[in-house]
């Protein structure tokens, strides 16, 4: 199918913060596409750039192959359903819906008596507008509401009017910015189905923005998962759910068990101290994230499955029970219609197709730093004790702090640039009072089965430390970091090149 919208190389920042980072995305005609991501991921900004409310700092927006990057919103054949409806409070329902139609001008050409071709601009007649408004109201099930003012309508009804006001103009693309966010759960579910049906009936391309993964999975043909202004994955709901590309997508889309694993052989992965068969091809010894969906965890009587564990909690969720098993230090969530009692020893098994392997995003932290006079290393806003002799194999330190190489050469390392590598496991998290030269804020915390993977961002230079920890930290927690001297791996920067 042909592309209707094509975004290439779109970047946008506000006050120096990059909100959308080199985004490339196309949307096919007639598709229902959802931009999905946590708040602040740039999805609404992307939508607003397509609507024309924001201009990208760089990049091109194309509609049907035509560059519309600098076209104002009123010149684009695109309409928007706003998050808070944005109905005109001083106009009634009819006037709200007719607003766009009254502004519509179209050109028609005809041949006059003298044989000249004349182009004239026409408006829609009152009658044509009446017919269209009536049709739109029927579409959203609000016949007879013409004379009501928006403040006399319920949230759901206002939402319908907002949708009618947009679709009555027969736009090429309908943009919906979290349109159901303000509705209650039941209303939201109803509207989801209605919107999906409307999409089918109208044949208009829908671009939907939401942070609700369930909504995205229910309604979309294609989901675009975004984080920090970058597209994480584009795919059908099934693809996104079953084959998440990274642990962020896996964590964001539905519940999942995420473990750290190592590839141990051809289609074999080791996690939870066991070797499992899998279906994906990965290089041997690669560190990976293993994702298992709770509904794919099969619970069997003790010793009948692959790994034994103890049920430590069981919660009834309506259709199924959600149970947590403890296997050693690790926890795994399982969903099943058959309840296992708390304390019961069970065994679980997962079929190879249900083991999803993803490349680990981070295995080490890499920084550029320099050595100080005191033979400490400064990087990422911190100063750390380290062993500088590792820069020159076989070297030693003299009393004055100079490095003496194997060959007896004396080297002053002050201000020498180095590449620093620190393993995720080797960064310790301390409470801020415990004192440390690096203090930062937890910006992300993802549970990986037996530990959390945190990203801690420093205050001033916003350097990120990625680390694994057993303890729970929430986003926005303030923490101090420490790294043992022998865990800091140094390389001379010149050598790296």
């Amino acid at each position, binding site marked *: 199918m042909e592309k209707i919208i094509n975004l290439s190389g779109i970047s946008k920042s506000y006050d120096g913060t990059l909100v959308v980072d080199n985004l490339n995305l196309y949307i096919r005609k007639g598709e229902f596409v959802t931009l999905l991501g946590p708040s602040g991921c740039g999805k609404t900004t992307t939508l607003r750039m397509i609507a024309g409310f924001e201009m990208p700092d760089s990049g091109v927006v194309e509609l049907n192959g035509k560059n519309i990057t600098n076209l104002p*919103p009123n010149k684009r054949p695109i309409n928007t359903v706003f998050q808070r409806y944005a109905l005109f409070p001083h106009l009634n329902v009819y006037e709200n819906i007719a607003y766009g139609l009254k502004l519509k001008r179209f050109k028609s050409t005809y041949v006059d008596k003298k044989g000249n071709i004349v182009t004239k601009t026409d408006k829609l007649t009152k009658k044509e507008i009446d017919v269209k408004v009536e049709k739109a109201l029927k579409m959203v099930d609000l016949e007879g509401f013409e004379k009501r003012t928006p403040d006399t309508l319920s949230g759901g009804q206002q939402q319908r009017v907002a949708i009618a006001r947009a679709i009555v103009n027969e736009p090429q693309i309908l943009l919906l910015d979290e349109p159901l966010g303000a509705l209650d759960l039941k209303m939201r579910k109803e509207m989801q189905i209605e919107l999906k049906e409307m999409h089918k009936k109208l044949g208009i391309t829908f671009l939907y923005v939401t942070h609700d993964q369930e909504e995205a999975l229910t309604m979309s043909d294609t989901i675009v998962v975004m984080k920090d202004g970058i597209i994480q994955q584009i795919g059908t709901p099934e693809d996104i759910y079953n084959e998440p590309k990274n642990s962020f997508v896996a964590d964001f889309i539905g519940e999942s068990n995420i473990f750290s694993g190592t590839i141990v052989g051809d289609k074999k992965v080791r996690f939870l101290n066991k070797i499992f068969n899998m279906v994906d091809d990965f290089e041997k010894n690669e560190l990976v994230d293993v994702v298992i969906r709770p509904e794919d965890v099969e619970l069997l009587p003790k010793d009948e499955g692959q790994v034994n564990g103890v049920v430590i909690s069981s919660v009834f969720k309506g259709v199924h029970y959600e149970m947590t098993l403890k296997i050693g230090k690790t926890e795994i969530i399982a969903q099943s219609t058959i309840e296992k009692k708390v304390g019961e020893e069970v065994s679980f098994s997962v079929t190879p197709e249900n083991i999803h392997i993803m490349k680990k995003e981070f295995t080490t932290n890499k920084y550029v730093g320099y050595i100080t006079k005191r033979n400490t290393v400064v990087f990422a806003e911190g100063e750390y004790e380290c062993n500088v002799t590792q820069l020159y194999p076989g070297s030693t330190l003299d009393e004055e702090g100079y490095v003496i190489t194997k060959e007896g050469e004396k080297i002053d390392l002050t201000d020498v640039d180095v590449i620093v590598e620190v393993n995720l496991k080797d960064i310790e998290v301390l409470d801020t009072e415990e004192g440390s030269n690096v203090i930062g804020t937890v910006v992300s915390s993802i549970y990986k089965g037996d530990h959390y993977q945190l990203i801690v961002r420093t205050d001033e230079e916003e350097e990120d430390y990625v680390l694994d920890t057993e303890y729970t930290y929430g986003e926005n927690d303030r923490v101090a970091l420490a790294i043992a001297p022998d865990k800091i791996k140094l390389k001379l920067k010149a050598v790296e090149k």
Partner: protein
Amino acid sequence: MKKVSFSRKHLGIPYALFLIAFVVFPLLLIVFYAFTDANGHITFMNFINFFKSNANLTALFISLGLALCTTIICILLAYPVAYFLAKSSASKSSVLLLLFILPMWINFVLRTAAMKELLFAIGFIQNNKLSFLNTIIGMVYDYLPFAILPIYTVLSKMDKNLVEASKDLGASPIKAFFDVTVPLSKPGIISAITMIFLPTMTSYVISDTLGNGNITIIGKLIENQFSSVFNWNMGSAIALILLVFIFATMTFSGKFTDKEEINARGSGLW
């Protein structure tokens, strides 16, 4: 012994007493004076005499003309200012707003005197043909902040999405402004009108200072009756006539907006 229970509504008692002593009672007194003569006999002569006198009617029309011109000019000047204040960033707009409000903190008699010096320097005060204009300049200068504030308040609270929605549906920026911004800022404009139109009819300090003795407004008439002529009955009658005019303007401007809207936006100051 019965315990006296104190509830929140009792907090209103002091103000109710104040209201009776200084608002209701004087008002009744004015009504009484207006409809009696010097000997205390009931009469309508005060009103008849007012409308018989050309000087009085001229003062009434000049007052209305001044109030109308001042209000229109104030709103035309204030609207763009309020619009750009509301659009600029929060930190910037608070500083700018302060600059516009600052003159209000200086005694207005002093400000008017300063204005007189200024107009004198450029030769406006001496020219008797410009008395009306001079008075308007002084009034606009004094009352402009009262127009900026309510319009700014309404504009800054307005949902930005509404203008975007208008543009989204095909309106040009100018069309969106007149279709959405202006109608929705009506409560602010109404407040501005009530806050400017009524005081300008009575604040004779400005017309006395800048009018070069050529401008007598209705407020001045009342003052004369009370402090020069000592005809309290006539003075009260004029005050009542003014009250009727004020009432008429309020009902007139009230027609353009429904009460709920004003209350909901908290900008209905009258």
